[in-house]
């Protein structure tokens, strides 16, 4: 649990003062990913760095796990929070193993425990410990380095993680791949995560909550669906883009649409199906894309066991637009 109360950061210089973060109030539940979203200079990174006191707070308070951060020892606080930055920040003079063990070593873990934890984390990140742990960061690709960056932040099993555009410097394919793995790992780990991003698609994909900032102010906070379907003001509307209805489709799966429509045109399945087939777990944006490219505007929906469930066509999407987002349970 992380709670911001009137959190404010003012930079004072001789002739003027700049408010980088202004009176922020919200909280993040345990096990949630909250994505800070906004253009550069909006204060999102400043707010993130205030949590582990890399930037001291000017007014207000931030509580982590029920404790005011200013009442804690700064070194202890930072060691209890995982920290991942863009370009990974791996230490080039240390091996992968030493990099991962930085925080456990400072906490005084014994050798065996560190070794075990290191292998465990590397396996979780899909990197063979035997092959990689004695290597140096420069010997790894950008994607591999970023995985190690995340493993390093997870090393001492902190309940809270701060991630500053961790996937920002990766190419789109690797980024997508790492995002999926990150979500898979988070499902087991249930960390409370603050995640800075400037990419709306990333925020929708990863966030349980999305907080949108502009010029140091919190514009809107809510689930991705709330943000996309009910932008609170012009700034949020502009920022999420004119295709927000399409983006919203990525939040829902064919399964959700099926619930609304009581299944699709089962009778059509009596004949043999020669057209395209999609999984019931596919998101609706991909489904729509399939439909638009299907010769007769229809695709067959199948479940995990390849059993045909029904036939989907574009008109089914009408059901979805009429429904208020709150009424749809998001299947993740």
């Amino acid at each position, binding site marked *: 649990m992380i709670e911001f109360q009137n959190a404010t950061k003012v930079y004072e210089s001789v002739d003027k003062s700049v408010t980088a973060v202004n009176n922020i109030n919200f909280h993040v539940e345990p096990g949630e990913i909250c994505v800070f979203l906004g253009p550069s200079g909006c204060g999102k990174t400043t707010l993130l760095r205030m949590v582990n006191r890399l930037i001291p707070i000017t007014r207000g308070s931030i509580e982590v796990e029920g404790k005011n951060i200013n009442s804690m020892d700064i070194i202890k606080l930072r*060691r209890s929070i995982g920290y991942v930055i863009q*370009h990974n920040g791996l230490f080039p003079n240390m091996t992968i193993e030493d990099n991962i063990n930085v925080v456990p070593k400072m906490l005084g873990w014994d050798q065996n425990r560190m070794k075990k934890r290191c292998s465990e984390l590397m396996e979780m990140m899909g990197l063979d410990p035997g092959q990689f742990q004695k290597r140096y960061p420069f010997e790894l690709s950008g994607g591999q380095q970023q995985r190690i960056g995340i493993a390093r932040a997870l090393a001492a099993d902190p309940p809270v993680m701060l991630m500053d555009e961790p996937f920002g410097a990766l190419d789109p394919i690797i980024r997508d791949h790492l995002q999926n793995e990150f979500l898979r790992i988070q499902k087991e780990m249930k960390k409370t995560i603050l995640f800075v991003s400037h990419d709306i698609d990333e925020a929708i994909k990863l966030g349980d909550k999305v907080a949108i900032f502009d010029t140091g102010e919190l514009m809107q906070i809510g689930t991705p669906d709330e943000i996309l379907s009910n932008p609170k003001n012009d700034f949020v509307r502009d920022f999420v883009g004119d295709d927000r209805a399409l983006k919203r489709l990525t939040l829902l799966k064919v399964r959700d649409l099926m619930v609304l429509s009581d299944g699709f045109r089962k009778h059509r399945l009596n004949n043999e199906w020669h057209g395209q087939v999609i999984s019931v777990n596919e998101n609706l944006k991909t489904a729509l894309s399939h439909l638009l490219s299907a010769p007769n505007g229809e695709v067959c929906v199948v479940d995990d066991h390849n059993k045909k469930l029904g036939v989907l066509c574009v008109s089914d999407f009408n059901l979805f637009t009429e429904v208020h987002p709150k009424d749809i349970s998001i299947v993740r």
Partner: protein
Amino acid sequence: MSGKKTEQIVKAGLYLIIISILGWAYFTGAFQFIIENPKDLLYLTGQHLKLVGISAALAIATAVPLGILITRPKFKRLDWVVLNFANIGQTVPSLAILALVMSYFGLGWQTAIFALWFNSLLPILRNTVAGIENVNPQIIDAGNGMGMTSKQVFFKLELPNALYAIMAGIRTSVVINVGTGALAFLIGGGGLGDLIFTGISLYDTGIMLSGAVPVILLAILLDFLLEKLEKIIVPRGLQRTLEAA
């Protein structure tokens, strides 16, 4: 690619110069002089090494800590003062320093060591400061964010990552000092300058080169040894990074 080619050409040129000097030394009878007076030569080389060794050790012991000190946040405002002072110091010719210092310390090897020490300060100081200031700020940020104390940030991140530059400064100043050390003879500091200046006074190129050739070989040898040392103490992860870049 072209950088590597240039490097090869320059290297080949240098070897050519060294070989021609050795050839010159051979024909002027320098080697014969060396063979006939092995004890003199060993004694003078020993003196020369002592001058260079002590002055380099003192210079490292002053310039590295000073460089570290002025990169600490507390003293950062002072770094331009120190660097400018060192820069101006470097513009004073070695011979002038010898003459100036002589009036305080008198004749002898202490004076020579002081002058050599003074001469070595700038390259080491410069490289120490540049090395530490050029450590990627991202890794310092990561270190701080992970809860390293400022001591840990320095010893685990800043210093190891600056070692390559610091070692380069030490190598430069040692090689320069081997050459400058020849001047020590002028104030009674001994060293291989003895043979060089004797040769000049006697118009005997052979004797002059019997001092100069060992100076050249000494400089090359010390640089080679320091390069090996560098390979040992600079973290492996950094050496390869620089090779790849």
